[in-house]
């Protein structure tokens, strides 16, 4: 069991390294920061362009640049942006912003998604099932940037009808906000509701579809009938034997879901003006900044792989057959 998890972990670390290397190489090969610099008006002097080239290690071959950068990363130094600011300064705060969005979003998404899926499986072809199906079909067809903007419009409507700004949809906190710890928490919550809902709704739809079909498979199974035949109540049989088995495929889906979440998070951060990792990626690519892009890729890779590994752990916890092997 420990061996299995360790093997998976090593596999994931290698994948993360390869992914980051690939992103770094692609970014180095396509980005042209000097070209951006030269288009400035008035054009910068040749000497400062030369200096910039040296600063960005553009005179070295790409693999060597990657080794230099990775060497810094191992020591906690992610290099400098084109504007010559250390990436490490901003990194912690941005990761915090993104992770808060992701973790709350995915927790709500999984909880309600599984619940909705189970309910619609148990009440198959009843009104609530049709309603849940329609709801998730529409949500799955609505890209995050449309959903986010629609929720923004909805929040504006609610604010207008109440008369005060209850739901704030710009930024993750009010700049220069004064108050005690409790008021700060309230301020953050006001900012949190709409963006989190944007992330969570899509996740709920995504998980509920899979949970429904996996629960349906279990509902028709023999062991559930046996559980009831030996005297368990239907509720107990459903939740103790049925739900646990139906959750097994979900554990592995979790890893796929996380990649989706990261991309969705990028849109959400841009729409609501949160300065997180997704926002940084878009700024980094627009500024043709290799270091920022590679740092964000590393973050994404670590997130996806950690969730993949967590999925393996959950899988092992839920399915005894894995533990035996």
């Amino acid at each position, binding site marked *: 069991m420990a061996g299995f998890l360790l093997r998976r972990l090593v596999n994931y670390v290698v994948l993360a390294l390869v992914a980051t290397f690939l992103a770094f190489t692609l970014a180095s090969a396509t980005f042209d920061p000097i070209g951006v610099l030269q288009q400035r008006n008035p054009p910068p002097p040749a000497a400062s362009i030369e200096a910039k080239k040296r600063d960005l290690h553009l005179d070295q071959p790409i693999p060597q640049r990657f080794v230099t950068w990775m060497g810094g990363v191992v020591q906690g130094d992610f290099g400098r942006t084109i504007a010559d600011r250390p990436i490490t300064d901003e990194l912690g705060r941005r990761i915090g912003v993104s992770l808060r969005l992701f973790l709350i979003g995915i927790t709500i998404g999984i909880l309600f998604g599984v619940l909705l899926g189970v309910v619609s499986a148990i009440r198959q072809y009843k009104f609530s099932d049709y309603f849940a199906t329609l709801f998730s079909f529409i949500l799955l067809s609505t890209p995050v940037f449309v959903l986010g903007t629609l929720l923004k419009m909805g929040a504006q409507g609610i604010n207008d009808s109440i008369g005060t700004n209850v739901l704030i949809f710009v930024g993750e906190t009010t700049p220069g906000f004064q108050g005690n710890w409790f008021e700060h928490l309230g301020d953050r919550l006001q900012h949190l509701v709409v963006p989190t809902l944007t992330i969570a709704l899509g996740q709920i739809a995504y998980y509920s579809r899979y949970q429904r079909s996996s629960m349906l498979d279990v509902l028709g199974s023999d062991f559930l009938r046996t559980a009831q035949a030996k005297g368990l109540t239907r509720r107990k049989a459903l939740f103790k034997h049925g739900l646990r088995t139906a959750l097994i495929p979900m554990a592995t889906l979790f890893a796929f879901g996380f990649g989706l979440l990261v991309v969705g998070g990028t849109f959400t951060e841009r729409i609501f003006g949160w300065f997180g990792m997704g926002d940084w990626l878009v700024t980094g690519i627009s500024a043709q900044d290799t270091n920022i892009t590679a740092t964000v890729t590393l973050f*994404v890779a670590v997130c996806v792989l950690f969730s993949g590994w967590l999925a393996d752990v959950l899988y092992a916890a839920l399915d005894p057959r894995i533990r035996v092997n």
Partner: protein
Amino acid sequence: MTVILNEGDSAGTTGAASGSPVDAAPEPGKAMTRGRLVLIRFMRNKLALVGLVLILGMYLMAFVGPLLSKWSYDTQDYTAFLEPPYSEHIFGTDKIGTDMFALTMRGLQKSLIIGLLVALISTTVAAIVGAAAGYFLGVADKALMWVVDLLLVLPSFLIIAILSPWFRGKSWFLLVLMLAAFQWMITARIVRGMTLTLKEREFVKAAKFMGQPARKIIAKHIVPNMASLLIIDATINVGSAVLAETGLSYFGFGVQSPDVSLGTLIGLNAESATTFPWLFLFPAGFLVVFVLAVNWVGDGLRDALDPTSTRVRRKEKKDTKEKAAS
């Protein structure tokens, strides 16, 4: 992660490879072809029919609509800036006086073409590569599995976004190729899994022992046997390609001006959506309805083509139970 994909593979395999459909007993004295059976089953699904009508309607509208309108996307009406919809401009106008209906139709055209092309290319590639990997196994097979794993870690959205400075100012067809290049892998894995079982079947072995070359066996015996899966997949891929394209275009990483897609329109107008909702709602509405319609059709096709899929099987079970009870 490997665990799941393998499971998905086997599920797909048992799904389409098992016997012929048995429901909807043919009328006595009249032989039912498979095509007719599939058509009947598809027509039974109301949502799928609605979806099909919507999709055809939108393709028609995107290409015929602009001809019927008196405004074009490159002319401005200097008497109407930022007007909400009214009789003259049914979708309103933007801040330089361009008719939103003309713009939306132009965006819709581009998004629909991109979606269709990407789906066709990626499904074709998936069928060829997946079948070849499954048939020959070996190094190509290992490489394929590994690339799919890698793509989970490095989302295609990220790769195309990174490469976007490179195709800026070039033809939008490059974007089509990029989108297709990252969409075929997961289907290829499912195709590979199905090939593994198909190649053990008698008819494939017979063809092999009769001296057919591998290329012909794949083209004539293996791929046609996965037609259902490929049709469903191509349909769903149109939807996901449109979503991927609009997502990239939203940030300016996809379709570049002077081309317009639904994504660029939404990205341009999302900021002002709370004050000038019509600029945002029309392109966004078309996008959502199109993807929804594609998903409905995909679902309907799955039920019609693949009799072992959960939904139909359960419904039939229920029907037979009810019949037995009555």
